[in-house]
C-alpha cells in the first residue's frame, strides 16, 4: 500500500539502506585481491569469521585465475601462434574461473547473506574494484 512519509523519515530510513564497499587490497601488486578487514557496519549483521572466510575464498579464486602457471603459458603461446584467433572459439582460463566465482557468490548469497538481508555483488560487475555488500533491509514507498 502506498503511504506517504515525511522527508525526515525517508532520509533516515534511506540512510540505513546503505552499501558497504569492500575495497581492493594492493599489497601484493596488481593482482585482484580484496581487503579482509571486517567493515564496522556489518558488525551486527554477520559473523566476522564468515565474512573473512568468504573474502579469503574469493581472493584464492582470483589468484587462481591470474596464476602464472604452465597452463596459462601454454594458452598464451598457443594464442600467439594462432594470431590470437583461438580465443574466438575457446574460453580463456580466466573466464572459466570467473564463472566459478559467480557460482560461489550466488551460493554464498543464498546460504548466508540473503537470510540476513545482505547481498554480495560480484566484483566483475563493478570493474573488479569493489565487492559490494548491499543492505536491502529497508526500502520506502514514496509518492
Amino acid at each position, binding site marked *: 500500500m502506498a503511504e506517504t512519509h515525511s522527508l525526515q523519515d*525517508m*532520509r533516515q530510513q534511506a540512510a540505513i*539502506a546503505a552499501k558497504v564497499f569492500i575495497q581492493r587490497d*594492493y599489497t601484493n601488486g596488481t593482482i585482484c585481491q580484496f581487503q579482509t578487514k571486517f567493515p564496522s557496519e556489518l558488525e551486527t549483521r554477520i559473523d566476522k569469521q564468515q565474512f573473512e572466510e568468504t573474502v579469503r575464498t574469493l581472493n584464492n579464486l582470483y589468484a587462481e585465475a591470474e596464476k*602464472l602457471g604452465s597452463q596459462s603459458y601454454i594458452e*598464451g603461446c598457443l594464442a600467439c601462434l594462432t594470431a*590470437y584467433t583461438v580465443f574466438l572459439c575457446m574460453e580463456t582460463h580466466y573466464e572459466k574461473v570467473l564463472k566459478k566465482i559467480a557460482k560461489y557468490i550466488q551460493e554464498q548469497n543464498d546460504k548466508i547473506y540473503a537470510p540476513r538481508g545482505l547481498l554480495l555483488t560480484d566484483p566483475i560487475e563493478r570493474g*573488479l574494484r*569493489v565487492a559490494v555488500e548491499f543492505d536491502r533491509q529497508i526500502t*520506502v514507498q514514496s509518492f
Partner: protein
Amino acid sequence: MMKNCEYQQIDPRALSVSPSSAQNHTETKAQRPRRKWEVFPGKNRFFCDGRIILARQSGVLPLTLGLIVVTCGLFFAFDCPFLVEHLTVFIPVIGGVLFVFVVISLLRTSFTDPGILPRATPDEAADIEKQIDTSGSSTYRPPPRTKEILINQQVVKLKYCFTCKMFRPPRTSHCSLCDNCVERFDHHCPWVGNCVGKRNYRFFYSFIISLSFLTSFIFGCVITHITLRSQAGKSLVQAIQESPASVVELVICFFSVWSILGLSGFHTYLVASNLTTNEDIKGSWSSKRGAEESGNPYSYNNIITNCCATLCGPMPPSLIDRRGFLPPDEAIPAASASEIELPPFAAKNDAHMCTQSTKDVLERMVHSSEFPGLCPPGTPKTSPLGLEATSVSGPSTETSPSTGCSRQLAHGPVVTPCPPFSRSSKRDSLHSINPAFRLASPSPSLSRTNLFLSESADVGFIPLT
C-alpha cells in the same frame, strides 16, 4: 566552485510536461532494450553492436593499414615473380604468413578493449568521499588526490581520478584522448588508433615484432631483387627502371625499419623489466633508487618471468561489458548525466530540503535526457579536452623516435610521439578548465542525493505493510 550550489525553484512546467514524455520513453525503452556501450561515458566508438571498440580519433589507423597493404601488395606483384623464378617459392609464402600475422595483430590491438576501467558508480564515489571526508566539516573540500599504499614493501601513491571518481589502481592511468582510465596504461598509439594497456599490450608487441620482421624481410628481398637484376649484365639504373615499384618499397622499408626496430627493441626492454612506457618516461622507479634493484615493485626480478607474465600471462576479461543490456532503471549513467546537464538543480547542503522534488524531477529529466544520443562520442563536455590534449602533445618531441609510437617516414611529416606523461600532468588543469567537470565533481549534498536516487532506483519500492 561548488559554493554556488543554491536552492532553485523547480519549474512546475517541467514537472507537468515530463510525465508524458517519461512515459513515452519508458515505452520506447521497453521495446528496445539498450546495451551498455550505447551509454558508455568514454570517448570511444563502437561497431558491430559493441563487439569492436576503437578510440574516437582513429585517423591514422587507415594510414597504417594502407601502408602495410600497399607495400606488401607491391612486393607480391612486382618482386615475388622475379624472386620465385630465381630463388625459391618460399619467399612469397613467408611474406604472406608475416603479412597475415601483422594485419591480424594490428586489428586485434586496435579493436580490443585495452583494459578500460568502468567509472565509479555514484554510490561508490560517495563512499570514497565519505571515507576521506570523515572530519564532517560542512565546508566542501575537494577530495585529496593521493593515497599511499604499500606494494611489496614499497610505497606507491595512488591518485584520485576526477573523471572516473575513484582512486586509480596502481599502474592505471587516465587517457585524455579516450577519456578513460586504462589498466597498466602503456601509451595511446595513434598508429593503431587505440590505447595500449593491459589487455592489448601483447597484441601490440606481436604487431611491432612481426612488423619488424616483415619490413626487414621485404627490405632484404627487394635489395636481393635489384642486385640480381643488375648482376645479369644490366646497370643498376636499368634494373631500377625495369622495376620501379621496388624503389617505392625500398624507400618505405628503409625508413620504417629503423623506427620499427628501435621501437621493438625498446618494448623488448620494457617487457623484460616489466615496465610500461608511461612509467619509463616518467622515471617512476629508476631515478629514485640508487640501489642495484630496479625499484620496480611489479618486477619479478627475472627476465624470463617478466616476459612470460607480460606476454603469456592470463588474459583478463573486459571490465566494461559493452554488450550487456542496461537494466530498466539504470541510474548509473543517468546520475552522472544529470549532474552535468542540470546545474540549476544542484542542491544545498541540507539534502532533505529538496530531496523529494529534486529526485522526482531528476528521475524524469534523466529519462528524457538519456535518449538524444547523450553519451556516444561527441558529447560536448568532452570536446574541449580533445582539443587540449592535442595541443599539449607538442612540447614532448624531445623524446627519441623509438620511444612512444612515432614512425619516421620518408615523405610523411613526423608524427608527434605519444606523450603519456604530459597528459597526466596536464590532466588537472584540463579538468579545471572544463566547467562540466567542475560540476561533475561530487558535492557532499548532491552525492548523497544521488545515493538516495540510486538506492531507490536500484531497489525499487516495496510498500511497508
